[in-house]
């Protein structure tokens, strides 16, 4: 019964999406059709119904209703409740339902609260949102029905992949989906603005919180995904340039570019068509990402439960949305008047540089990700990895990072070299000194060396926009920028340090024996069997110490899950302020020795702390933007350009 209610809600949602699309489209023609008045309510009700459908799915998972196919194939009555619930979206059908639910809720939210744009533009936006949602409803109902019943209820569920039975992973995919969906809202705003030729600073301000929100979620999703891969796969790496990782990185790159260009549009009324284009590209990248992840068309270490046929459905949707948007763009872009001019040496100029570099990096990642598909057409199998992505990406990343240090110091419209001479000299000097120090004292390859040096320079540069200002009066959005840029520096430092200074040892150790990695002394006490709720494991007891420190217990495991039967290696981590000790237990050799893989990774944690800082900066920016927008709406009109203080500074 619950499942049928959920399915019925989905059908209703689809019908409302049609109404939204038709009503919004008619409104464009005759201005105020009768259906037009229904567009907003339709979007709101659709949001509520989609939420209802998703709650039904959660419910059937919570009570482990084994007559529902999805539950029978992905859950198990003996699982802890939290994993029963997360199992609801830890599979293809459920995750797609989560996607449309979030999208419908976002559509409902803008229909409910967004009153700043002209009504016609809003209707066009909601029509676009309905169009996108409709494709996903069709996808769900026709080819991925999460509520499908089994002819005969299963006796017991098949369980959830143990690699997915992890609290981090329970929240990782939803985080990315929130990001993807946020970009779909930005896309709809862009299409709406394009259709009604209302590409104004106001449009950028309305769109910006959605882009920022999407960007914060993507940042968190990527950060969490990277940490998950790091400790769960047991390979000690934090980024593999895997197609699924790239699938989350590409929308992030596009969203980063978009939020910066939207800032220019909001503050200075420049980069109009470019911002629209980026809105389209950013959502395209979300769709490409979904396609790559869901179709399993590329080999990935993260790929779970993939299905090529569904992939072609997503590909079809992708072509439809993007083709449609680009067609509208081609027809309308010419009629969008050009925005305000600016000089190259200005805040706008730096942001344009940032945008071009981000687009180039995006292109490089996209080409590298799709290249195996291209060559496969000629029956040549290749894989593309770090030897391509690292150096080629760095060629564009390094100049971008350098300009990132200076850009926020520049004035809008135009600036003088004299004013910025000293900050630039200071930043360059820090980079040069740190670079030289690393070169002299460390045995480091070129990229990590540059990474360390630039990270040091950027860490200082990030705070320079606060120089000479009353810190209490600095707008929240500016703090957001400072924190996010500082987060980039922190993360970069972690990446470079891990790459440059990691120490690794692979050893076979008898119980009682010990090993040495860098300054660390590791003693293997014993390897014992242990048991958990749905697994048994062999657990190594390692006592790890450095210098005169008291030895700490570290317990890597080799786990055997029984539903479904599978082995996993559970790495063990010991975190210190200056890095992480990482241990993995392998097999036992015939002579009784145990394989151990041990790493000391200096400052590796900064990678993820940096990611969190970047996201935190985004949150500050949203708060600051929304607050100043609310104030402006309350009637506090600035005299020029309608932009907050720091944007004029």
């Amino acid at each position, binding site marked *: 019964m619950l499942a049928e209610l959920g399915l019925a809600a989905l059908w209703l949602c689809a019908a409302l999406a049609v109404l939204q699309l038709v009503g919004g489209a008619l409104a464009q023609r005759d201005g105020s059709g009768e259906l037009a008045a229904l567009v907003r309510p339709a979007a709101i009700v659709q949001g509520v119904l989609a939420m209802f459908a998703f709650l039904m799915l959660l419910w059937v998972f919570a009570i482990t209703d084994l007559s529902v196919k999805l539950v029978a194939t992905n859950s198990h009555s003996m699982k802890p409740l939290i994993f029963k619930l997360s199992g609801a979206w830890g599979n293809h059908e459920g995750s797609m339902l989560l996607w449309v639910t979030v999208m419908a809720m976002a559509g409902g939210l803008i229909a409910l609260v967004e009153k700043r744009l002209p009504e016609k533009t809003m209707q066009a936006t909601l029509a676009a949102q309905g169009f996108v949602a409709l494709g996903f409803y069709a996808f769900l109902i026709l080819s991925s029905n999460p509520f499908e019943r089994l002819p005969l209820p299963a006796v017991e569920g098949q369980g959830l992949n143990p*690699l997915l039975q992890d609290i981090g992973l329970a929240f990782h995919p939803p985080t990315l989906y929130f990001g993807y969906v946020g970009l779909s809202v930005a896309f709809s705003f862009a299409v709406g603005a394009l259709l009604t030729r209302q590409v104004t600073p106001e449009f950028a301000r309305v769109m910006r919180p959605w882009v920022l929100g999407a960007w914060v979620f993507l940042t968190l999703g990527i950060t969490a995904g990277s940490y998950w891969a790091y400790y769960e796969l*047991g*390979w000690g790496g934090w980024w593999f340039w895997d197609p699924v990782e790239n699938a989350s990185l590409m929308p992030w790159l596009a969203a980063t570019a978009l939020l910066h260009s939207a800032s220019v549009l909001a503050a200075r009324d420049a980069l109009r*068509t*470019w911002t629209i284009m980026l809105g389209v590209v950013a959502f395209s990248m979300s769709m490409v990402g979904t396609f790559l992840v869901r179709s399993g*068309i*590329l*080999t990935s270490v993260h*790929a*779970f*439960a*993939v299905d090529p046929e569904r992939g072609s459905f997503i590909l079809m949707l992708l072509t439809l949305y993007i083709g449609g948007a680009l067609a509208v763009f081609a027809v309308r872009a010419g009629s969008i008047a*050009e925005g305000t*001019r600016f*000089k*190259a*040496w200005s805040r706008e100029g*730096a942001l344009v*540089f940032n*945008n*071009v*570099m981000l*687009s*180039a990096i995006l*292109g*490089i990642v996209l*080409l*590298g990700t799709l*290249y*195996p598909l291209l060559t496969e057409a000629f029956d*040549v*199998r*290749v*894989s*593309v*990895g770090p*030897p*391509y992505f690292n150096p*080629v990406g760095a060629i*564009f990343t390094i100049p971008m990072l350098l*300009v990132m240090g200076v850009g926020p110091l520049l004035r809008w419209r*135009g*600036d*003088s*070299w004299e004013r910025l001479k000293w900050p630039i000299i200071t930043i360059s000097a820090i980079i040069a000194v740190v670079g030289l120090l690393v070169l002299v004292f460390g045995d480091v390859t070129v990229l990590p060396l540059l990474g360390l040096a630039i990270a040091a320079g950027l860490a200082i540069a990030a705070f320079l926009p606060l120089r000479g200002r009353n810190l209490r009066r600095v707008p929240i959005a500016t703090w957001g920028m400072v924190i996010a840029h500082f987060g980039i520096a922190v993360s970069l430092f972690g990446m470079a340090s891990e790459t440059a200074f990691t120490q690794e040892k*692979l*050893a*076979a150790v008898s119980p009682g024996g010990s090993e040495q990695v860098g300054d660390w002394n590791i003693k293997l006490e014993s390897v014992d069997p242990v048991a958990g709720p749905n697994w048994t494991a062999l657990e190594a007891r390692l006592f790890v110490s450095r210098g005169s420190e008291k030895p700490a217990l570290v317990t890597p495991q080799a786990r055997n899950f029984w539903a479904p*039967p*599978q*082995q*996993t290696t559970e790495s063990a981590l010991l975190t210190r302020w200056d890095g992480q000790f990482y241990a*993995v*237990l*392998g*097999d036992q*050799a*015939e*002579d009784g020795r145990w*394989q151990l893989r041990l790493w000391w990774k200096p400052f590796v944690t900064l990678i993820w702390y940096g990611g969190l800082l970047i996201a935190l900066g985004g949150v500050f920016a949203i708060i600051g933007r929304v607050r100043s927008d609310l104030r402006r709406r309350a009637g506090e009109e600035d005299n020029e350009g309608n932009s907050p203080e720091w944007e004029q500074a």
Partner: protein
Amino acid sequence: MSDNGGTRGLKPKHQRLVLVSLALVALIGASLLAVWGLRSQANYFYLPDQLVASPPPAGQAIRLGGMVAEGSIQTMGDGITIAFIVTDQKEARVPVMFSGILPDLFVENSGVVAEGALDAKGVFQAENLLAKHDENYVPKELQEMSEHQAAKMAEETTLGLD
């Protein structure tokens, strides 16, 4: 980006043109660089029979995909190096050496993709092993390979029946 001259007399149309061409130049540059990088840095995938028939130069990074031959997994004296044979379940057999922790589902008669390079003696030195990592997931190359084999077997067994 370091133009600090006076107000330039660019018409709005021209600035848009300049920006578009700058973006185009950067993107074309990026694409050219990417193509160059892909040509030189992509990792080619080999099946065991291809590797035996036309081995790539020693030291070139490649990927080898196949089945782990039955009874071929051996642990060396150091306790950390594993030797095994990757086969296509016909004649082609490639010896592989790997130092490290084996993937969770690395077992005999199961698919594996090894990343690494051939050494001078014709032994594949693997730096990384990718095994299927859940019950349902098989590396794509292996999936297709087994379909291919199944088709071949069907062809052979039905030969001359019509």
